């Protein structure tokens, strides 16, 4: 995958600034800390994937970045502006795509785009709407009511609307939830094209294939940022050993080894079983007695999903 390329390009750029550079970001709802002391640095033109289980604080973090919520603590800059004091200015330069389709279903595609363009006080509004319709291939559908669009088209409309004011940073909250694989692939093509042109992305997702399409990742659980870096870095730092088991009667085997010392995860992957743990020696000792059977055992590289589930399990012990 050509994921790594743009980063090296940008490192050579003269602008050393980060598009997002915040630290200590904290948000409490009552007694519950939803986002706890998070630091994040995202370079311009980078696609940063933000992962974590439901309710881990991803959306809250995004909302704080674009000024929808006031953080309880934290400092830093977003597009060179103080993210706590200059949220009005930041809003003008950021596009935020909400988790749920949040445009007007009883307005047409064109009317929705025109409304957003007006809100951003675009100097050449009509032209901007026209360009947006063209780029997203919606010129013929301009008079269609947004409510009658399919999921994939709604998502394209939402992206178009987020882009209409030519933002420098896009915050996309689970943009591809419920969208078919073809539309998802097209969507990511578009994202990469835009990133190559200099746009910065912060995208939350639950899909592992999407996570691996990001330049860098952050993993958050219970409000804490548990891991960050490139895909390889995240996997390496996790220090997880994974055995792949193939053969007959895997579910019976899984029942036997689940819960043994050092065995942290036993997950069925189609016709194979992934057995992982962070302590390689303990894990080997525990599963050794089963290796003599009819099953084939091989050590494989841990996948992102294995790593994330392991991170989440650990976080559960530490924070909940």
């Amino acid at each position, binding site marked *: 995958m050509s994921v790594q390329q743009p980063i090296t390009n940008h490192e050579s750029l003269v602008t050393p600034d980060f598009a997002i550079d915040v630290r200590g970001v904290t948000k409490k709802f009552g007694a519950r800390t939803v986002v706890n002391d998070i630091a994040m640095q995202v370079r311009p033109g980078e696609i940063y994937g933000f992962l974590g289980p439901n309710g881990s604080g991803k959306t809250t973090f995004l909302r704080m970045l674009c000024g*929808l919520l006031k953080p309880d603590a934290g400092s830093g800059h977003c597009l060179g502006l103080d993210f706590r004091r200059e949220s009005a200015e930041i809003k003008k330069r950021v596009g*935020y795509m*909400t988790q749920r389709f949040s445009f007007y*279903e009883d307005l047409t595609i064109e009317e929705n785009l025109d409304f957003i363009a007006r*809100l951003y006080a675009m100097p050449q509004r009509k032209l901007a709407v026209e360009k947006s319709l063209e780029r997203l291939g919606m010129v013929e559908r301009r008079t269609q009511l947004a409510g009658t669009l399919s999921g994939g088209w709604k998502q394209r409309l939402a992206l178009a609307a987020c882009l209409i004011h030519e933002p420098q940073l896009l915050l996309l909250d689970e943009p591809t939830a419920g969208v078919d694989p073809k539309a998802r692939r097209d969507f990511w093509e578009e994202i990469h094209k835009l990133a190559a042109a200099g746009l910065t992305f912060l995208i939350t997702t639950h899909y592992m294939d999407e996570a691996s399409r990001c330049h860098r990742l952050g993993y958050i659980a219970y409000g804490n940022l548990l891991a960050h870096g490139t895909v390889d870095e995240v996997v390496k730092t996790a220090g997880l050993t994974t055995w792949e088991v193939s053969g007959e009667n895997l579910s019976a085997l899984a029942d036997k080894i689940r819960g043994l010392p050092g065995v942290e995860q036993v997950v069925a992957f189609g016709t194979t079983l992934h057995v992982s743990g962070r302590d390689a020696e303990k894990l080997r000792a525990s599963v050794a007695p089963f290796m003599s059977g009819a099953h084939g055992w091989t050590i494989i590289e841990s996948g992102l999903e294995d790593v994330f589930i392991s991170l989440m399990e650990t976080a559960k012990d530490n924070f909940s």
Partner: protein
Amino acid sequence: MSFNLQRFWAVVVKEFIQMRRDRLTFGMMVGIPMIQLILFGYAINSNPKHLPTAVYAADNSPFARTIVWALRNSSYFDITREAHSTAEIKTMLAEGEVQFAVTVPVDFSRKLLRGEKPSLLLETDATDPAAVGFATAAINELTFFVLNHDLTGPLAKLRGTSPPFNLIAHQHYNPESITQYNIVPGLIGVMLTMTMIIITGLAITRERERGTMENLLSTPVHPGEVIIGKIIPYIMVGYVQVTLVLLAAKFLFDVPFMGSVPLLVALTFLFIVANLAVGITFSTIAKNQLQAVQMAFFFFLPSLLLSGYMFPFRGMPGWAQDIGECLPLTHFLRIVRGILLKGNGLAECASDLWPIALFVAVALAIAVKRYRQTLD
């Protein structure tokens, strides 16, 4: 498919669970009947008594005192004011300070003693015919025997089959007691209350329910721009309604237009703002559109019943009048009836304008405070 009791019961149980979860709806289901019961049971009275009455006794004779005493005793009249001129009476009636004014003319007792049947003048604020009907009948009744105790000895001959004096009843503002004259102008206020509160309540709750509010707030748009921008179209809708009712009043119901229509249109603005402020306040509290409608109804019901629109305001007990005084519709009804039927100007309307203004200030303060909270 046959009717299956178990499946049917599953639906019943589920509905009850959901009903219990939606606290506000549940409260409304219990609260609205209670309010109706209290209002209809205790507050409404179509035979109003103790109506404020002014007396102008130009002839302060024992006869005049007897008449005043008898009026008070009838329980229909409360002598609240003493007037010293006909002009003063006119103002009191115009401002709605009193419902009735009784004038005992200068030569009342002299003419009475001579058997010349003097006139006793009863002036009525008849904008609401229902409010004055019973009281007027009562005073008519009185004339036959009120002076019987005073007319003794040689004066006894003045007692007779006809009363010793003539009661001249002067019904101001709506001399023919046409109910429509009272109801149709009042309808302006009722319609504005209903549509403005429901529509604004819905307009903002809808944004939140559909998730478009989040999107809106992530753009540079200012909350004030959102609220004012949302309200303006409905103010226009409100004026369309006002125009329709005014046209109907003029051409279908022949309601007299005694005062200035531009003044009415101008003062209506404050009333519209008052209702929009209520609507916005509700929308900051309601979690969904259904709740917004329920809250609008919760406000509308007392407005309709306690404002003097359907039932005479002065027929209600004190506590109900106190609540009524807090509602903008009560004051707007007095303004609109005052301008159209009495020909009142700005000066006479002033006493009903400031309560509406105060209401707007309080409602907006709550709305703004709540709106800020909902951002976080």
